[in-house]
Each structure stands twice: as structure tokens, then as C-alpha cells.
């Protein structure tokens, strides 16, 4: 039986219809249950319900064979995983945002910039790659306020529509990556459970493609 890590919350709600139409409907509602593990009706998978930010680690360590993870979380955690399918849900962009008057090319900055983010690793990596010295502050709450109140020059965050940014007078300066929910697979499981993983992948792929058309 494959162990499938699912991130509790909104992404899981959006992923459930795909899992159902792919033939892996859970025996009970994943949203209402208080259990931590729930089997599928077909008996081929067991769902492990974990916190979104923890999913990559469960998969990387092989506790789960596969799982559904946001690309943003995958980038931040930096786990060594396979990523064979984009589910095309929970779409958003990872961006560098800030006040409009700061709009000048980041490449020309020589003095250290202050960056606030829920994704400190992504932020650090992005600015380092550009050769821009920066100090990163890890925030857990609303990140926008970091730039609004002047804690930081920039924020690195995910945006869907950009409404929150606009309402706070912030603009997107640079795009780092397109994010969405991915099917992530443990490297050992990809080989050691080849047939089961391949079935799940292809069934989910059809479900995702079916939903598009």
C-alpha cells in the first residue's frame, strides 16, 4: 500500500476531487475526520494528514511514499524529491514586492536590503543569486505589514490575485517562480514501488487533464 501525504487545509480540499476521480476516494471524509491516517476505498493507498509545511520532509524521509505539496513549500524546505506532476491547483506566484517608490533595479543595489518573508530560505537564495547583499527577517504573520511598517524594504511572498498587495499600497517588483500543487515522490519509492507509484501518477494525470478539458 502506498502512503500518501496530504497537506491539511485548502490545498487538500482542492486535491480531493482529483484523488476521487483518479479512483482513490477515501473511506471517510478527509476534511471532517480527526484521524491522522485514512485509507482509500480501493485499499491501494493510505492518506497521512499532515501540516502543509511538513509534507516534503515526510516524503523525503520515506515515511510517506508520495504526497501533495505546494511548490512554495518545496522551494522553502529544499527537500530532495521527485516532482513528476503539476496538479495545476492552488496556483500562485512567489514574488519580491515592496513599496512602489522602491522600484529600481535590484541588480544595482549595493547596500544590504532588508527582506521580510515567510520563506526565508527562498528569499536568501534569490538575493544571493543576484549578488545583492540582504538581511532576511522570518515572519509568521502577515508579511505585507513588514514592508508597510518599514521593517523591511522588500517582502518575498506568494500572491494569487495581488489584491492584498494593492490594498496595502505594495507592488510586485520581481517574479521568482510560478507555484502550484505538485505530486511529490520519494526517490526510493519511485523505484521500489514502481508499479504502484506509476499507477497513481498516471491516474492522477488523467484526472487533472480531464478537469482541464
Amino acid at each position, binding site marked *: 500500500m502506498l502512503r500518501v501525504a496530504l497537506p491539511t487545509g485548502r490545498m487538500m480540499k482542492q486535491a480531493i476531487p482529483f484523488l476521487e476521480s483518479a479512483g482513490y476516494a477515501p473511506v471517510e471524509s478527509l476534511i471532517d475526520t480527526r484521524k491522522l491516517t485514512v485509507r482509500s476505498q480501493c485499499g491501494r493507498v493510505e492518506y497521512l494528514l499532515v501540516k502543509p509545511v511538513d509534507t516534503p*520532509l515526510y516524503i*523525503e*524521509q*520515506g*515515511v510517506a511514499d508520495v504526497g501533495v505539496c505546494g511548490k512554495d513549500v518545496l522551494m522553502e524546505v*529544499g*527537500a*530532495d*524529491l*521527485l*516532482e*513528476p*506532476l*503539476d496538479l495545476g491547483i492552488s496556483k500562485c506566484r512567489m514574488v519580491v514586492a515592496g513599496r512602489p517608490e522602491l522600484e529600481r533595479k535590484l541588480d544595482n543595489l549595493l547596500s544590504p536590503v532588508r527582506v521580510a518573508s515567510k520563506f526565508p530560505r527562498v528569499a536568501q537564495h534569490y538575493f544571493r543569486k543576484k549578488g545583492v547583499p540582504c538581511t532576511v527577517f522570518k515572519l509568521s504573520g502577515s508579511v505585507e505589514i513588514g514592508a508597510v511598517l518599514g521593517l523591511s524594504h522588500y517582502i518575498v511572498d506568494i500572491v494569487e490575485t495581488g489584491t492584498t498587495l494593492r490594498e496595502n499600497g505594495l507592488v510586485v517588483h520581481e517574479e521568482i517562480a510560478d507555484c502550484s500543487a505538485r505530486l511529490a*515522490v*520519494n*526517490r*526510493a*519509492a*519511485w*523505484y*521500489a*514501488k*514502481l508499479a504502484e507509484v*506509476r499507477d497513481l501518477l498516471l491516474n492522477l494525470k488523467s484526472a487533472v487533464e480531464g478537469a482541464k478539458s
Partner: protein
Amino acid sequence: MGSDAKQLSFPPGTELVFGPQAERRQFISDRVAGVFRGWGFTEIVLPAFDSGDTFEGLSESGDENELYHLVDREGRRLTLRADFTLIAAKALAMDLRREPRQIRASYEGRVYRFAPSGHGHRVEQAQRGLEWVNASGAVYDAAVIMMARECLQSVGADDAIIVVGHAGFIHAVLGEAGRRERRLLEALDNKNPSRIRQLAQRIGLDAETGALLEALPLLTGGPEVFENARKFNLSDGAAQALSDLEALYSMLDDAGAAANLLVDLGEVRRSDYYSGFMFKVYHHAVGESLGGGGRYDRLFDRFEMDVPAVGFGFNLARLAEATSTNAYADGAPESVKASDGTDALKRIREIRTKGGSVNLVGETT
């Protein structure tokens, strides 16, 4: 235990093995060493540190920050051993300059590479492996895989999977230009078809190459993979590498050694290091690779020598995780009481002469 007892700890990432785990580790190391000896390999002892250039270009991520450096009393910068093959190749090159010949060398020890905390990765990793130098031809490739399989069987991890790929295949498909595209290699390594397609288009690879690259993640499996790959229009180089890999597969199959053997044409990791076949070992109970190896005919170029070579190594901690617990149940040792004094020593000599094991126990136990 007083609350003001001094805290005892080692830095994160270090490896400390006690009790039954240590016993299991010893068993595994002995068994693997036994297999290597059985194939005529001789143990070599290698330096724990060297000048940094030995490990240049080593890292999988291309990130040289993985290395540990230290400075000696004369101000020279030294690097802790981060890989065995590179340091063994240097040592063997010295030996080969003296007397060119085929060498079968095995080693055991630790390598040191930085690992970010929070992922459960270790900085210190114990390995046992081998180098077979001046070994040219498919028989040696097959022999190395047979040896790896024998090691797995000897420790009770028969159900481990050996996955073979070919560096020449991915080199030929990507071409010189494609091989420099770090992000494309990363997408291939992550088996992420949509990202591969996006990058192949952005780089301007032709549609056929793009289609093959996008299909690579699913070109994993049994011997049907060879047939599936031939549905694409392959360059001469790619077709040759594919035939070589297929010949290796058939050779192992004919020799009765193809059980739990998979093919993965999309393997790109460390493909710069390898020149021919490459393989990795996986087990369903362990999240990460237990070990691997392959052919690196160009490795000795850095010592201005033309020496074809194959080799592989196991990560002993991960191999231990894959080993079934009862695989090393030896005969129970005979207890001898320390309080019996000289009689105890005499009894121990009797037991040990016959090859039995003893447990000398004190008064308190």
C-alpha cells in the same frame, strides 16, 4: 542525575552508533568486506584529508560549500575527505605510475559533507566501497553489479532494487549545450516533465529532443524501457549508449543476476563524473539511496593517465536500515564468570580455540 550535570553532546550531523546498532553496523561492514575479499579486492587505507583541489567539481549540487576545510599549523588549507573515489583515484594513480597494471582496491571510512540541519542528513557518512582500475569492458560493468547484489544478499537486503542508467545516453541527448543548462539538469533530476518542456523550449532545443527529454521521467522500468526509448529518433551517440546498456542488462539476465534490476534512462545525477553505465541502490524501507557506482573512464585524465575504471560504494548507515533484523543472529555467546579468575581464562581459551564466542561477565551482572 543532578540538574547541574554537565551537558554531553556532539555537534549536529555527527554520527554516533551504540549497542545493537553498532553490532549491526559491524556485521554489515564485515559481510560487505567479505564479498569484496572474495572477489580478490585488497584493502587500502586512504588519507582523511587532502588539499582542496582533489575534491574540485565534486558536489552534486555544484555547491562547493559542501566541503569542510581546516588550516594546518603552517597555514595550508586542507579539505576533509568528501568522497572516496576521487582520493582513491589519486592514490592509485601514484601506484600506477610506478607499475601499470589492473588494481582491485577496497576501502572503508567516513566522508564529510555539509548537510543543512532539519532534514535528518548526516555530515559524517560511513562508506565501504571499491575501485577496479584498468578494467575495461562490459563484463566488468556486469561484475560490479553482481558484486553489489551479492553484498545486498549477504546482509539480508535481497529485496533492494538496483537501478541502472547510462551517462553516455544523457550526454548524447542533451549535447554539449544542454549539459551546461543547470536548471534543465535539475528538472530532469526531479523528473518534472512540465518544467523540462518549458526549459527545453526556452533553451531552443529541437522539438524531437524536447519530446524525448520530457518522456525521460517515465523511461524507468524493466527491459521494456529500451524498446520505448527506441520509439524516439535517437542520435548515434544515444543509440550506442542505449545498446550498451541493453547489452549489460542482457548479460546480467543471462547470468541469472537481473532480479530486482531496473533501468532508468532519466538518471542525470553526477552524470558528469561517470562516462558509461551508472547505478544506484534503493530499498523500500529506506528513503534514500543505499549506495551506487558506475564507470568513470575519464576520471584519471586529471592525473594525465588513460585508465578505464569502475567502482561503487555503500552508505553503511542506510544499508543497515535496509537489513532485516535477524540476518546477523550468530550463535549465542557462552557466559564465563569473571569471579572464576584463572579458571575463567582457561575456559575462554577453550571456547575461543574452537571459534566460539564468549561473554565474560562481572559480579554485578
